[in-house]
C-alpha cells in the first residue's frame, strides 16, 4: 500500500503527469480544492474539473463537467485527483479506470482521504496510488517553492 510514498515516486508521478481530472473540486476561490486546481494549472498541468454544482462554467477557459461520464472519452487523462469523501471513492475510481483505461496511470486521494480497497484494486491493475496527500503541497515541497518560506523539504542536494 502506498501510504507513505517515497519522494522518488512522487517526483515520478508529478513529472510524468500531463492531464488531471479533479473530481469534486470547488470553484470558490478561497476553498482549498480551488487552490490546488489553480496551482496545478499554473504549473502547466491540464486540469479537467468535475463538479455538478459548476457544470457548464469554465475554469481557465475550459469547461467544467457534471460527471466523469461527460468528460470526452478521447481525452488522455493520466491522473485522477479525488476531492470527495471516502464513501464516493469506489464508484469514482471504477468509472475513471473504465473510461480512461488506456491512459490512466495514477489515482490520487487528497489529504484526509484514504481507501484501502480501492488502492489495492488499482495497484493490482498496475496503477500508482497516492493517499492522504496533496499534489500541490508535494509539488511545492519537491520543486523548491516551500523552501522559500522556511519549510522542512527534506531535500539535501549539492547540485545546481
Amino acid at each position, binding site marked *: 500500500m502506498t501510504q*507513505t510514498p*517515497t*519522494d*522518488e515516486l512522487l517526483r515520478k508521478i508529478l513529472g510524468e503527469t500531463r492531464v488531471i481530472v479533479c473530481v469534486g473540486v470547488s470553484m470558490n*476561490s*478561497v*476553498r*482549498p480544492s480551488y*487552490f490546488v486546481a*489553480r*496551482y496545478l494549472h*499554473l504549473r502547466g498541468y491540464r486540469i479537467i474539473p468535475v463538479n455538478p454544482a459548476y457544470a457548464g462554467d469554465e475554469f481557465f477557459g475550459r469547461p467544467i463537467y457534471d460527471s466523469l461520464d461527460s468528460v470526452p472519452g478521447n481525452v488522455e487523462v493520466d491522473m485522477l485527483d479525488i476531492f470527495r469523501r471516502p464513501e464516493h471513492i469506489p464508484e469514482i475510481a471504477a468509472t475513471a479506470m473504465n473510461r480512461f483505461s488506456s491512459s490512466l496511470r495514477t489515482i490520487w486521494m487528497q*489529504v484526509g482521504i484514504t481507501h484501502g480497497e480501492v488502492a489495492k484494486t488499482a495497484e493490482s491493475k498496475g496503477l500508482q496510488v497516492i493517499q492522504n496527500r*496533496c499534489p500541490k*503541497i508535494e509539488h*511545492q*515541497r519537491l520543486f523548491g*517553492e*516551500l*523552501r*522559500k*518560506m*522556511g*519549510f*522542512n*523539504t*527534506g*531535500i*539535501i*542536494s*549539492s*547540485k*545546481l
Partner: protein
Amino acid sequence: MDLTATYGFDTLQVHAGAQPDPTTGARQTPVFQNTAYVFKDADHAAALFNLQEVGYIYSRLTNPTVAVLQERVSTLEAGIGGIACSSGHAAQIMALFPLMSPGDDIVVSTRLYGGTVTQFSNTIRRFGWRATFVDFEDLASVRNAVGDRTKAIFTESVCNPGGYVTDIPVISEIADSAGIPLIVDNTSATPYLCRPIEQGATLIVHSTTKYLSGNGTCMGGLIVDSGRFDWSASDKFPSLSQPEPAYHGLKFHETFGELAYVLHGHAVGLRDLGACQAPMNAFITLLGIETLSLRMQKHVANAVTIAEWLEKDPRIEAVTYAGLASSPYAERARRLYPKGAGALFTFAVKGGYDTCIRLVDSLRIFSHVANLGDTRSLVIHSASTTHRQLTPEQQEAAGAAPNVVRLSIGIEDADDLIADLDQALTRAVAKT
C-alpha cells in the same frame, strides 16, 4: 509531511535548507541583502499576495537567506517549518500571537529565563493576555492551572539559569489532554541535546542569539512548528481555524493543513508585527549552526568537568547541574537528554551576595556578561543583573538566589577555566 530522507544530525546541520545558488553556483549561502523582489507579471503578484503561491515578496515576510535558516533549524528540530524573528523574545510573542485573544492565558513554568518571566508577568498583560506561573514538578498544579481560556503551556527544556531539565513527555500529555499546544523554549539545550517535538511538543521557540549562532555575534529568534496540531479540533484557535478577513475569508488550517501555522506566521505574523530577522544575522547564524554538534560536545564535556570540580571544593555550598550524578534530575537528564544536560549551571558560594560580586570581579577568562551560549565562558550574578527585577520569591524559584552565580561554560580548555575559578574563589573568599 513524512520525510523519506533520513540524514544524520551532522549532515543536516551543514546542508539542510541550503543548495548551491542557482544563478551563480555559489556554494555558501549568499546574503540576500535586499528588501523587495520583482514579480513576473500582475498575475504572479496577485497569486503571491493571495497565498495561492509561495514566493518572495518583501523581506519583512520572506528572504532567501532567512529561509535557509528557517529550514535548517526546523529540519534539525524535526519540525515542518520555521519562522525566523528578530530575537528570542520576539519569537516568543510571535509564537503566541496566532493562539491568543484578549482574555486568554498561558500556563508557564516558574523555571524560566528572567527576561521571559518579566515578558510573561508584565508585558503581555498589555495585550490582554495573562500567564499563570506554576512549578512543573507539581503536575497536579499544572493540570489545575489549565482553564477554559488557556491556549498554551510554555516551558524551557534545559532551563536557564540552569540545573533543571523539564520532563517534556509528561508535560506534553497534559497539553494533549487539554487540547492545547505545548511550546518549548529549546534555547539552552539546542536540537543537538534535545528534540522536544519528538517528545510531544507542538511548537519550539529559540533564541538563536545563543548556541545556534554560537559565537556571541548576533541577535535572532526562531519558531518551529511540528505540523501535528489540529487547530480546527476546537473553537480555541480562531486565527487558524476561522476565516481571515485580510485574506478574503480564507481559513488557514482548512486551506493549508499542516502548513497553516508557519504560513500564518509569515503572512500575518511577520507581515503585521514586523519582527523579521536581518539576512546578515541569518547568514552568521547559519555559519554557527554548521559546527553546532562539535561545539555542544565540548560545551557539555567542559561543563561536566568543571561542575564536578566545583562540587568537591570546600568554598562552594552547592552546584545545581542536572549533568551531575548528585542532581535530583540526573536520572531524567540521562533518559531524556542523553547527550548532556547543557552547559549552563549555577553554584552557590559560601558567603553570599558580596562574595559573589567579588568572585565575578576577580575572574580573568570568564566574562561578566548577560548572555549564554558563547564559545567564550561567561559568568553572571543573576540576582544583581538579569533577575534583578524579580521578587525574592521569583528569584528563588528561578534558581537565582543572592549567593548564586551562573556559568555558561565555553569551549576553552577545561583546566584553564578551573584555574580561573580557583584563583577568583580564593580572592573572593579571602575578604570575608
